[in-house]
């Protein structure tokens, strides 16, 4: 079986600096993968490549057998790849409900949206998501007024409601309280299986508690890959990252 997402031999340079260097990464459908690595290892650039924000100099990205290397961001989203940014990015001038409405699954063309009403399914999905992320009581508040943690929640909700097949989550627990972190673990672990989930995270405790499989990046390439316990004991990994 070929992998759901295949990043093959990708190289990206910014002004001579190789952010990614001949990187290959394969993801199976339904897996929960953590990507770790020191600063500058290329974690965020990898996300950028997969979501079309950055184009690779060399190499290809294939999703479900389709070459998406040159696709625009919104086309990649339409294929079912959702991304959560490192810092919470919500629409500050819209209410929480509207934020979810904006990201709802459905047609996204301007003429369709001009006359579109929320379908019963969409409304139900929004209400379900509100409950899941615990913001039901805040549905009519402007998202710009939410606290940092609540914005993180909302953004995860905005991702979920797109019903993506592949979820890319960049540092989901940064700045969260312990309680919030535990809730995030639950959500992300619950998603794996039905969705493929990729988590980029610095917090090793968090990674340890959720990861089935870990990929360690270093200087733009894969340094090690495997079960957390194996990777943790890999001398190379210990040297560049975990041991520090």
């Amino acid at each position: 079986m070929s992998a759901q997402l295949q990043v093959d031999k990708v190289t990206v340079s910014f002004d001579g600096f190789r952010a990614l260097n001949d990187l290959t990464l394969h993801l199976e459908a339904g897996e929960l993968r953590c990507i770790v690595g020191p600063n500058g290892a290329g974690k965020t650039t990898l996300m950028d490549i997969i979501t079309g924000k950055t184009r690779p100099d060399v190499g290809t990205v294939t999703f479900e057998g389709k070459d998406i290397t040159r696709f625009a961001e919104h086309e990649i989203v339409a294929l079912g790849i959702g991304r959560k940014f490192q810092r919470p990015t919500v629409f500050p001038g819209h209410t929480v409900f509207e934020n979810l409405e904006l990201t709802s699954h459905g047609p996204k063309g301007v003429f369709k949206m001009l006359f579109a009403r929320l379908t019963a399914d969409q409304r139900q999905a929004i209400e379900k998501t509100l409950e899941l992320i615990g913001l039901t009581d805040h549905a009519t508040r402007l998202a710009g007024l939410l606290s940092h943690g609540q914005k993180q929640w909302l953004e995860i909700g905005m991702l979920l409601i797109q019903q993506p097949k592949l979820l890319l989550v960049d540092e989901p627990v940064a700045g969260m309280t312990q309680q919030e972190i535990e809730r995030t673990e639950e959500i992300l672990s619950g998603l794996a299986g039905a969705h493929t989930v990729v988590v980029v995270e610095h917090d090793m405790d968090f990674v340890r508690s959720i990861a089935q499989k870990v990929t360690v990046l270093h200087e733009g390439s894969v340094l090690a890959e495997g079960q957390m316990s194996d990777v943790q004991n890999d001398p190379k990994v210990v040297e560049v990252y975990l041991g520090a």
Partner: protein
Amino acid sequence: MSPAKPTKAVPTLAGFAAARPLHWNSWVAGVVCLVVGVIIPVLNVGPSPRSAFHISDFFVTLVGKLTCYGIVAVAMDLVWGYAGVLSLCHAVFFALGGYAMGMYLMRAIGTEGNYRSLLPDFMVFLDWKELPWYWEGFNRFGFAMAMALIVPGVVAFIFGFFAFRSRIGGVYFSIVTQALTYAAMLLFFRNATGFGGNNGLTDFKRILGYPLREPSTRAALCAITGLALGLTYALCRYIIGSRAGRVMTAMRDAEAKVRFSGYDPVAYKLFAWTVSAMLCGLAGALYVPQVGIINPSEMQPSSSVEIAIWVAVGGRGTLAGAILGAFLVNGAKSWLTVAFPTAWLYFLGVLFVVVTLVVPGGIVESFSGLLKGGGFLTKYFGGLGVKRAAAGPETAAAAPVSTGGPGVGEEQEQP
């Protein structure tokens, strides 16, 4: 329109709250349309000139003109206040609509011109023997009206398509539009372009057979303009109230996020931009028969900047505020250019600076602040620090993000 949508605006976020309809916004627009569309024309035509209720012909024409500017301001607000695209070439779209109407009016003169020729006077003067091909069809009113909408629409679409697709945004986009304005003006200044050079098109006689000198024709034009403003407002209100409108405002606040939500910002910007340009064309077409002339000075780069000032003064992202801003600034201009001809530009400059500093949300924001009982001064001093960063018209093109938390600007355009 979801039931869960809040109905009350949040005063602390005036700039953003403006994105959701304020109750009295449509009232203001409605009253303006009623006054311009019905009351003023009726009081002009009805009571005898001696009556205290009579409104002078001069005033009717002035109001008609201001209302055309009001349409432009609403169109500008759609694309700037809601979609976050600051255009500095709306005067071109306005003038293109005006020229389309002017061409019809020139053709409608028939042989009554100074040279008693079927050709427009300026062509006789230039010793042209026949009508250029692009003047064909403009003897028909319907065709000319269609062109008044289509030409600005097509120009805007083509220009916008390449600009938005290349992700030219913010200040850069504004600068490019300003360059377009200048190029268009130079083009229309040339005699060889075929639109009357720097004199433009003028000396019109009648529209659809009605003499333009007749006060009743002018009153009717004023009424139609009032109606057009109402329809423009209703259209724009519908657009921003639709889900597409919410995508537009979201795009203004966090474009990258909109892209990662599966929307193509190019399509949304292009839509708002083209609709806005067409509305400007409509305004231009209504403007020309009322003022009796269209020439390239309407395309001056400064005219486009002034449009942005009307909207900023009135209140970006409110529609009704844009109408009020257009009336206020242009009304003041009509008065001040007569009363203090040399001081007008100083006044405009001071007004702009004061509005930017004191009420960055425009006069509408200060009104709504008063209405909500929040002390105006408290509001001013309380909100200044936050809002100044966001709402300066120069920075506004880059979308106001001050209250959007950190990170909103973070994932904006990559170089």
